[in-house]
């Protein structure tokens, strides 16, 4: 089996409503262990583990923790980013619905190590089940003394609260998320200062993804060195993959980094529905690259993904079979970002509508070679000049399609005037 269940090991085995079952399954053991450790020691373990953020950007978690730990402030916020809005991603929901205490435990450990005083889980508004489960779990953890005053009879105090947005995609961006918690419209801020310096309500703030926090107890359990041996040299540990699209077995799978995409699709996903051919695979989510079938042997790894001038994304694999036209897929993606852009910076606000209009010309078979040039140029400007991660990644699909599916573009232009079908 290519699966490796480190953070999904309790999925389906415990009742997520029951803290006792979680405790019985080694739950909160690692918190107790961490509370016995020096704070710096915890961060060192995470550094040894070479854990990188699982939300998409892959920033080293230990560096963030050190950043927060060195700040002097009466209040420090630990935020769990559970605003899982990226199309094709649903692994955070699995974590929240199957093993909520693991997230809490991870947050409490990080808070202890960095001096965090208050935790907030910002959950996507549509995830009502996750929200109620987390609220329930927080209450349970408080009753058992894992949250609140004097956690596990140590001098450490920490509390967690659940907040949710109203369904805006961009609120998953860290500063937009902070603005949203503060009660403002979800629009990003200028960096610097970074959240660890000046985040929620102007206080030092650490924001990590659900999966990142969920991984922390495992690292405490097995140690940073052992964790680092899992995966590849630059991408350690395991990754939850949200597999969807035209595959037989859609779902969330935990694999060590380094597994080829093809294996995930065929061994875990069971191949394509009706055994059709793969036309394209989108990686990471709507903001990720679109690759052709012949590239599926590439492994899942942070470094490999940099080839696409993009980030790994949160681990989605969306398989699209040969019944679909690349331009209709691209149009859907662009219109999504056109709608979800916060509207703060020009390239993102004004660019997507223009991208969509150009792609429509390809769909309507009215495009020219000049449109290919314009599309590429505009997509690159949005990618390079936008203020936040949304605009910086929204055109990855277009840029990658121009690279790997250029024939489709040229074919469409050449067959435009005569109105022939392809």
């Amino acid at each position, binding site marked *: 089996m290519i699966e490796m269940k480190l953070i999904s090991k309790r999925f389906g085995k415990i009742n997520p409503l029951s803290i006792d079952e979680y405790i019985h399954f080694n739950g909160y053991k690692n918190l107790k262990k961490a509370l016995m450790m020096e704070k710096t020691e915890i961060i060192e373990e995470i550094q040894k583990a070479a854990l990188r953020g699982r939300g998409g950007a892959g920033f080293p978690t230990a560096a963030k923790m050190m950043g927060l730990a060195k700040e002097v402030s009466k209040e420090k916020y630990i935020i769990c980013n559970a605003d899982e809005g990226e199309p094709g991603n649903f692994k955070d929901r699995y974590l929240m619905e199957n093993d909520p205490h693991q997230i809490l435990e991870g947050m409490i450990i990080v808070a202890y190590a960095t001096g965090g005083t208050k935790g907030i889980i910002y959950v996507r508004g549509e995830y009502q089940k996750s929200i109620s489960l987390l609220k329930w779990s927080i209450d349970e953890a408080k009753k058992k003394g894992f949250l609140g005053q004097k956690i596990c009879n140590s001098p450490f105090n920490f509390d967690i609260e659940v907040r949710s947005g109203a369904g805006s995609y961009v609120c998953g961006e860290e500063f937009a998320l902070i603005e949203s918690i503060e009660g403002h419209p979800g629009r990003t801020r200028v960096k610097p200062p970074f959240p660890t310096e000046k985040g929620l309500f102007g206080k030092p703030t650490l924001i990590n993804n659900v999966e990142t926090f969920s991984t922390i107890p495992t690292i405490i359990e097995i140690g940073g060195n052992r964790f680092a041996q899992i995966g590849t040299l630059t991408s350690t540990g395991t990754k939850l993959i949200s597999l969807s699209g035209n595959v037989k077995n859609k779902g969330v799978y935990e694999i060590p980094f380094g597994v080829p995409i093809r294996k995930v699709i065929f061994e875990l996903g069971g191949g394509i529905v009706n055994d059709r051919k793969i036309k394209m695979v989108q990686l990471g989510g709507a903001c990720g690259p679109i690759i052709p079938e012949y590239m599926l042997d590439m492994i899942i790894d942070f470094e490999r993904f940099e080839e696409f001038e993009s980030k790994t994304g949160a681990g989605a694999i969306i398989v699209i079979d040969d019944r679909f036209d690349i331009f209709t897929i691209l149009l859907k993606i662009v219109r999504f970002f056109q709608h979800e852009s916060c*509207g*703060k910076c*020009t390239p993102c606000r004004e660019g997507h509508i223009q991208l969509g209009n150009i792609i429509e010309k390809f769909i309507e078979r009215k495009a020219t070679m000049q449109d290919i040039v314009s599309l590429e*140029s505009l997509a690159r400007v949005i990618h*390079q*000049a936008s203020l936040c991660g949304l605009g910086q990644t929204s055109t990855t699909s277009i840029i990658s399609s121009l690279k790997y599916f250029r024939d489709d573009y040229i074919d469409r232009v050449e067959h435009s005037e005569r109105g022939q079908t392809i």
Partner: protein
Amino acid sequence: MKMVNATINHINITVEENTSILKAAKKFGLNIPTLCFYEDLNIKSDCRVCVVEVEGRKGLVASCSTPIKEGMVIYTNSPRVINARKTIVELILANHDTNCATCVKNMRCELQNLAKTLGIDQNRFPSVLQKCDIDDHNPCLVRNPNLCIKCGRCVDVCSIIQGTSVLSILGRGHETRVSAVFDEPLSENFCTFCGQCASVCPVGAITEKDDTDVVWKALTDHNKHVIVQVAPAVRVSLGEEVGLKAGTIVTGKIVSAMKLLGFDRVFDTDFTADLTIIEEGNELIDRITNNGVLPMMTSCCPGWINYAETRYPDILDHISSCKSPQQMFGALAKSYYPKQAGIDPSDVFVVSVMPCTAKKYEAKRDEMKVNKEYPDIDAVLTTRELGKMIKQMGIDFENLEETDFDSPFGITTGAAAIFGATGGVMEAAIRTVYEVVNQKPLEKMDFKELRGLNGIKEADINLGGSTVKVAVAHTLSMAKILCDQVRAGTSPYTFIEIMTCPGGCIGGGGQPYGTTNQIRQNRIDSTYVVDANMKFRKSHENPEVVALYENFLKEPLGDLSHHLLHTHYHDRHHEEQKNAYDEGNH
């Protein structure tokens, strides 16, 4: 301060650490184009026009918000940068009404300039503009969303500088727009009409409502006797409209220009500023001696009155009942003046030139009609509108001879001149109140502690043996601090001056475009130069004011004063402004 080394376009530079790339480049003679950036306002980093390339960074960075670090290698003009900048400006133009030749900001538009600078001869992107309604439902400001480029400057001044938050960014994505709440007109959102939004707008999306046509019409109507008053702050700023240095004093040239424009008489608002001091000073003394409501607050700023009536209706008793100098002038111009000149008051057409957009609203208030039928002030022009008329007339302003104001509202004092700067009204009032109460000449006439751009300034004044505290605030966010104290009953002051605009009237919403703190300071400096050079520097020494009381008004706070020079305020907290002041529409 730690210094760091970096290179910009291969040139070695050394600057203080954390200087922005934009500022550093400027220091070394290189102007990186910008659009949302505005001196003294927040760095927003929204427009992305100022992007540059930094070696080692994948994307382009905004030079306005990126601090220089040791060893940074920066390119401000690489092909990638130029292409991004052009693309961004093309995208903006594709969602902008580009009928530039018929735009109110033609030739003064920052977007137009930018397109020209970047050499955008054609736009690769088709227009995606969806036309929206123009908001001109108030007498002061016109908002044309079809020109808005969502730079957010207006939102910044409205929310941060003024703390009024009438304008904000609504919607998201392509539907992002600057608007008042629920997309309602400004008039229904308790806008104070300060016009600071208009003064920072880079394009023509927010401008003053243009009244030049009304004035031109009156000037060419032979049945009208058209007189004009010029506010104190205009004489140190109008020069900028014709290309002179900020702060150039052009008092005499304005009078000459007005004569060329065809005004029958040119008067000085400074005269009624002196009159305001006499009335307001006596009101203060009256409140102090007769246990009146204190602290007393000034009333000459119409933006502040709008703010108080809508946000602090419970403290209206604290506001002096004196009309503003503009309206005192209007009242006299429709009563005393026609009698003196032997003209039917209904034939007198009164124009004001003000640094202010809210004055247009003030002039239309129901209380501002001494004859009940027609307004005391018929038209209000901003400094910018006067500049426009001067250009339309083809006046060679710079080379005009200087002319004195006409009588009977022509002799003025230094006290009146400083009305234009924050702290000026207070200083002018003290010069008079001190002498009236203490019955001895004021030795030190300059109250330096009340001058300058600090948000709130204080002074202690000796009146009749006891010390009273006075305070001065400019910008509504600063005014709020003092108002909250007054509301809570904890205000330590006896007299408070409030001006809505940063720097006072010299920084008014109707002043020449491009006002920064430096320019405000230049105008303030000139204001005090005007004051220092005056023959009379205290309002009660103005011989024409003295004569006005002798021949007409009889005494300060007397019956006639009350009828002509004083007013009252309304609680507009729950009121629909739209209905109350409907005649201002359209």
